[in-house]
Each structure stands twice: as C-alpha cells, then as structure tokens.
C-alpha cells in the first residue's frame, strides 16, 4: 500500500510538473455583452473570452435577431494579440433580444459550442 500510494502521489506530481500549459478545451469564460444582460445602448461588437487559445479560422460567431436574421458581419478575430478572444462587429442594433451562437476550436483542435441571449433596451 505505501509503495502504491507513493507511486500514485509521484504520478500526480509528474502530471502537474510536466503538463503542457494552455492546451485544453476552450470553454467560454466571459462574454461581452454578458449572457442575459440588458444593454442600455446597442453594443458595437460581441467579444468572447475563452479558457484557452482558439483558432479564428475554425471558429464562428453568429449573432441573430428575434427573426433569425444575422446582425454581425465579418469573420471572428482575436482582440489585439490575445489568442483567447474572439470578436465580431455588429450592425447598429435596434431594441430587442439577440442570440449569440458560437463554435470554437482550440489550438489543440478541441471543439466547443454554446449560445446565449442579450437584450438591447428600447
């Protein structure tokens, strides 16, 4: 038992010391506008921040109005040099509820997806 416990503890230490940092599933950590928020003025962009670096070429963000019409334009890009972000510009939004649907591919090819809504106040 003591030997196996020692081996288990050593394996755990090895994991922590030799693991590759920054390579994992890209889970959404922060959104702007935030999920479920009510925006007093129409936001000009949607920015998503993930737990890991994402590939802009293999990631998408679609922002649609209540009728399903796209209100974003251009392909998602990083914000500055931050590889953990994706951002798309928006047309001027009218008051109403909008849905953000995203698909992200991390740099180690793990795929994640999600969606949320926000509201622009009238």
């Amino acid at each position: 038992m003591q030997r196996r416990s020692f081996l288990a503890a050593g394996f755990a230490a090895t994991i922590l010391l030799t693991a590759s940092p920054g390579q994992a599933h890209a889970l959404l950590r922060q959104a702007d506008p935030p999920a479920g928020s009510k925006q007093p003025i129409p936001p000009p962009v949607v920015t998503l921040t993930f737990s890991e670096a994402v590939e802009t070429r293999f990631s998408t963000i679609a922002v649609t109005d209540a009728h399903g019409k796209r209100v974003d334009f251009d392909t998602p890009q990083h914000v500055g040099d931050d590889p953990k972000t994706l951002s798309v510009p928006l047309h001027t939004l009218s008051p109403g509820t909008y849905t953000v649907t995203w698909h992200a591919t991390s740099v180690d090819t793990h795929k994640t997806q999600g969606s949320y809504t926000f509201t622009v106040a009238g």
Partner: protein
Amino acid sequence: MYRTTALAAGLGAALVAAPEGARAHVIVGPRVFPVTLTFDDPGTADEATLPQVTLAPGSDGAEAYAVQWEYDKTITPNTALIYNQGYDILSQRGAKTRTGFENVAITAKWQAITDADTESVVSLGVIRVFAGGSHTQAVGGDTFGSTVPSLYFGQGGGFLPVPLLRPLALSGEINYVIPDRRLDSTLDNGGTPGGWTGGLSFQYSMSYLQTEVRDFGLPDFVNRLIPLVELTYYSPANAPANGYPMTLQLAPGCIYLADSYQVGLEALIPLNTAAGANVGFTMQVHFFLDDLFPDSLGRPIFP
C-alpha cells in the same frame, strides 16, 4: 458499479457503501458533465483520479477508509478502457485493523450517442471485476470475479422553459452485476446474488448559468462550482439474497471544475440501515489528461 464493503467484525449487518471511484468528464455542446464521485459519468476521455479518499464511520467506533485511483485511456475518440482499484482500511475499537486492496475493475466503454444540440449523451460498457485474494476478502471484496453490463447517460437541461433551471443536468448509470459464483439455495457456497446497481445525479452548473443563461457578475471561483446530489443504490437481482439487502445512499456535495482538473467533496448519507450507520465523506482530485497532455497521454491510441 456499486460495491458494498463489510465493516470490521462486530457490526452485524451494517454495511457501508463505498464509492466505486471517480471517472471521466465529458463535454456535450455547451454542457460539461463533470466526474461524479459515487458512480461513473456518461462519457469517455483520457483522465485520471489521484486519489479519491473516503471515510465511512460505522457504529460502535468502527471506521472504514478507502483510497482509490483510476486511469482512463481512450482507444478511439469514442471508446475507452478504464482501470479502477483502491485500498481499504477497516478499523474497530478492540479489534485488529483489516487492510487490503479492492478488486481490480476494468471497464470497456463506448460513447455511443452524443448530441450537442440536445445536450444528450449515452454510453454502453462492460465492467470486468477481477477476483481478489485473501486480503481483498478481508475488506469485503470477492475472491471471484464478476461481469457487469452497464448503461450510462447524461441529459442537460438547456431545453427547459425556465431559464434559471437550464443549468440543471441529470446523469446516471445502471449496472447488472453477474457474479462468477452466484449464491445458491444452500446460502453457503460463498457466492453473491448479483443484482442491480447504479446511480443518479442532479447537477447545477454555475458556469453554464454564467455563459448560457445570465451572468450575475459572480467571482470566478463561484462560476466554476457545480453543486450536486448523487444517489446510489444496490438491490439483489434474484433470490436467495440473504445477507445482501437493498442499500440506498445520498451524496450531496460540490465540485470545483478547473480547466484541467477538478476537486470534489461530498457527504455520504445512508438512507437505509443496510447502507450504513453514520454519515461519511468522500473527496476526489481528478485530472483531465486530454487537456494536460493533448499530444501524448491525452490522445486516443487510434485518433
């Protein structure tokens, strides 16, 4: 698989249900099904538990400790082999402490259905529990093996009409234990009756709440929590089943889900006498090898 552990001599019919050991997490669309602590989760992945520690106090000063470990290895992206084992210490005032390794269990698992849009996942598996020696028997394990066909499932609550309920999720496992030596009518052949085991969990993902429903501006630590309640059970399949009563256990707790590991803590509350006499605890540290080593240990053997 749900394994009952006999406490040290003098406890009579009191049994303690020991968790089988933690398992993998699975991501289905926006839903992360974490590793549950008392039964397996519904998917396949490259992961490891190092360790899971359980304390299960019995009556009359008896205590059972278990240290368990586990390693999951994907063969293809949707199939995996899983190794589980543990070491038990059973102590009681006035009696000699008994120690021994649990039966080794190897699971072959196939993640058969994964639907990101409905947040649904179903896996099928077969667990082979290998025969143990005298030390295994000393801590309530079996000197013969068993084969356990298993079904695993997970369902996220993203479809629910009430937004604040959407972070809820359900996961479960159903097993049928087929012992190599089935208890016969003499009740004296050293066998067991086999039976149904399984678990069910109700989870609430704070991360799902923040990113899919409504961001309340809570601290990051809170947004990584998954409060949950697990329920595990065992019931003998066929008569005779003397000495193998139905057991039912509730395990409320919380999981902290980091990017490449998780830590979980749950109380173990027996819901009937056969499941134990007192409240115990289980704590688990689990590593996501597919996130830590995506180019080596974390990749399927056949991608």
